[in-house]
């Protein structure tokens, strides 16, 4: 049939592209790559190769996940492995054109590693380097390798094979396969995907809906964005399979408006899939109809909650409602609705491209498969990573991430965004899976991992998250609306040096009640950052109440002082101080009048490195 022809052409195109004589240059041009300057690099390479009459194919790809090394390019020449080059500057780009494209010198000093069977002297294999050695890329396998705007590239990499296979099976068999894979929802709570589907399959209704939650509201997370930008067809394939299993004919992708590139790529991918009858009526002759519509989220964290998301799609205020009835029974416009996260649905396409057993090769007992994480914060190698569930936090932070930025002391890692908690150093050996994280008071969440170092104040972090939660609370139920606000006020006081001894107990008390009595997931989890920081960093709270901020972050609890032995009277700080708190004549020692100082830190930053005469101290004295 027609599609077979398309796929064969696609495979040939792919082989020609990757193994042909013409050199291929890949440029990581997802949002992060672009921000780091990828487009500029691409223009330079394109100009340089044209000027020298070097024939080559230049291709924009998604994110390979090595964010710390952006901008990133890869070069594939005939009979050579694919070489990854990181931190490319315009000068390095020109040098590479000169020496590798024009001549045959691959410049190992700029290379991160190679992918492919062959090896090159002086360049390690990328999957043997620390950053990738512990990773297993299954969900992300196409990201950064294929051109996300070409459906043919997806076809050439096993794309839509899962759908073709699934459409030949009965919906019940698909649910069984998903059950066998053991996959649990990748959006946060970790509910078994098959069970949710089964509820919906069993519900009797003339219309059912499938919704993909691509709102990714967690600050500090960008896994879904990278997937949508780098491999949008994987999501579409997963959605069609899951819609077929539950019996839905309409699907929605609820994607945040802050992701313009992801929205653009999705729209294009849907159009391409429709043209080839991978979406639409009677998909591939199976008799199954399915359409996908994209809805832009309007910026409300609470819409990560299923029932609030449904209200938002209906054009209402995104407020949750009590459950039951669960959306799988009564959801969008009162019809049975399944809401799955982007990563869950992409994993579904992988399960069917392979099989359930393949999926269970990795993972721990109750948490199967691999999981993507956004590894960010005070870490050397930030990035988008994918590891088998059950990998320890230590491996992720020290091996993959290379340890704490500037070799500072590790303090905590925050998982699960505003719904999660902070895990201290002593617990770094716990495996990352749904149950182990729950045991220590946090959650897996959608996969944000924010590393914090000795200069991060845990009380300030707790205040930050509660501030977020109280602003995002929809206001419908009292515990969340008032409880989060109350916790915020207490924490705000503590960070300003107005804390009272009973505050810590009060925070715990309010936190526990908010968790126990809130209507939806937002309130049921929002106290986690406060409760875990109290549990593991109580001493920092106590220090704040005693008017000290050990991390020297909270403005009301620190002081800046000028070291008279180092100050040369260069007068810079004097000029920048917004309150006129610094006194002293040029070429003489300067002094900060503490009563006038607002601890803005401008003087500290302006003091030239060669003097470093201004120091920060904990406490206001």
């Amino acid at each position, binding site marked *: 049939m027609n599609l077979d022809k398309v796929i064969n052409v696609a495979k040939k195109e792919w082989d020609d592209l990757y193994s042909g004589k013409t050199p291929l240059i890949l440029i990581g041009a997802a949002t992060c790559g672009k*921000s780091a300057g990828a487009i500029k690099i691409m223009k330079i390479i394109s100009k340089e190769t044209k000027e020298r009459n070097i024939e080559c194919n230049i291709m924009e790809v998604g994110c390979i996940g090595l964010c710390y090394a952006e901008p990133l390019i890869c070069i594939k020449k005939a009979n050579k492995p694919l070489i990854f080059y990181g931190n490319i500057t315009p000068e390095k780009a020109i040098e590479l054109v000169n020496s590798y494209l024009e001549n045959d010198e691959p410049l190992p000093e700029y290379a991160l590693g190679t992918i492919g069977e062959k090896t090159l002297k002086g360049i390690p294999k990328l999957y043997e380097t620390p950053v990738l050695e512990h990773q297993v890329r299954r969900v992300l396998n196409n990201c950064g390798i294929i051109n996300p705007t070409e459906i043919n590239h997806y076809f050439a990499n096993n794309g839509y094979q899962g759908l073709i296979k699934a459409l030949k099976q009965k919906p019940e068999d698909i649910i069984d396969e998903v059950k066998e894979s053991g996959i649990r929802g990748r959006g946060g709570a970790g509910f078994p995907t098959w069970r949710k589907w089964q509820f919906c399959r069993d519900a009797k209704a003339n219309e059912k809906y499938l919704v993909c939650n691509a709102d990714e509201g967690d*600050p500090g997370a960008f896994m879904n964005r990278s997937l949508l930008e780098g491999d949008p067809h994987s999501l579409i394939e997963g959605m069609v399979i899951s819609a077929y299993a539950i019996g839905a004919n309409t699907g929605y992708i609820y994607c945040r408006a802050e992701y313009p590139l992801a929205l653009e790529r999705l729209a294009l991918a849907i159009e391409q899939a429709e043209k080839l009858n991978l979406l639409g009526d009677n998909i591939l002759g199976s008799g199954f109809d399915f359409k996908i519509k994209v809805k832009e989220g309007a910026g409300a964290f609470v819409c990560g909650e299923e029932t609030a998301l449904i209200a938002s799609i209906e054009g209402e205020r995104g407020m949750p409602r009590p459950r039951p009835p669960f959306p799988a029974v009564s959801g969008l416009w009162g019809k049975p609705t399944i809401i799955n996260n982007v990563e869950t649905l992409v994993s579904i396409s992988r399960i069917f491209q392979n099989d359930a057993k393949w999926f269970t090769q990795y993972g721990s007992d109750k948490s199967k498969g691999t999981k993507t994480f956004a590894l960010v914060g005070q870490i050397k190698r930030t990035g988008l990573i994918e590891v088998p569930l059950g990998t320890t936090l230590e491996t992720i932070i020290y091996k993959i991430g290379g340890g704490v930025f500037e070799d500072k002391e590790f303090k905590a890692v925050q998982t699960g965004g505003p719904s999660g908690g902070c895990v201290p150093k002593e617990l770094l050996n716990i495996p990352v899976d749904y149950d182990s994280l729950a045991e220590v008071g946090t959650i897996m969440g959608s996969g944000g991992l924010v590393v914090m170092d000795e200069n991060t104040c845990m009380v300030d972090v707790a205040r930050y998250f509660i501030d977020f939660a109280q602003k995002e609370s929809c206001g419908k139920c009292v515990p969340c609306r008032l409880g989060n606000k109350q916790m915020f006020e207490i924490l705000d006081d503590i960070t300003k040096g107005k804390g009272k001894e009973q505050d810590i107990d009060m925070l715990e008390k309010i936190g526990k009640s908010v968790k126990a009595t809130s209507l939806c997931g937002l309130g049921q989890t929002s106290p986690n950052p406060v409760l875990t920081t109290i549990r593991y960093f109580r001493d920092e709270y106590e220090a704040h109440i005693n008017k000290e901020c050990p991390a020297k972050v909270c403005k009301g609890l620190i002081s800046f002082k000028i070291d008279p032995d180092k100050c040369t009277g260069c007068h810079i700080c004097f000029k920048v101080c917004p309150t006129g708190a610094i006194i002293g004549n040029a070429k003489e020692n300067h002094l900060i009048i503490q009563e006038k100082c607002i601890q803005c830190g401008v003087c500290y930053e302006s003091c030239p490195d060669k003097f470093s005469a201004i120091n920060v101290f904990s406490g206001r004295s």
Partner: protein
Amino acid sequence: MEKEIESVFSNFKGKSQELIQLLQKVQEDFGYLSDEAILNVAKFISVPKSKVYSVATFYAQFRFSPIGKKHIMLCRGTACHVKGAPRILDEIENQLKITNGETSEDGEYSLESVACIGACSLAPCIMINNEVQANLTPDKIKKLFSKK
């Protein structure tokens, strides 16, 4: 305005479930939601104006006053926060003499803090008219805005 707004409506059916997309489209074309635009939307989908306001004010995306030529979105995500976003905010406010949520008098700049722009590995960052400025320091902010 009437005519322009009608052209916005031409792609919609006038159902109440289209409300959020309608507002998004109006904001995209006009930069913000004026009282007049809200009234027109309400008439178009046959709901009270109060209903349109109740939805519009719920979502962080919607604005009710014009934005500057250069709209700055400051990321307040966790990664940006631990990497110094509060100082970046201070410095932008200091340089542009506007506070979070305001537009400068000459209409050149507006400043808004957003939950997360998803470029966490480049923290702290801001977005100016859809272009991300990465790995910021107060010094870089000074250079970025001091030409003003």
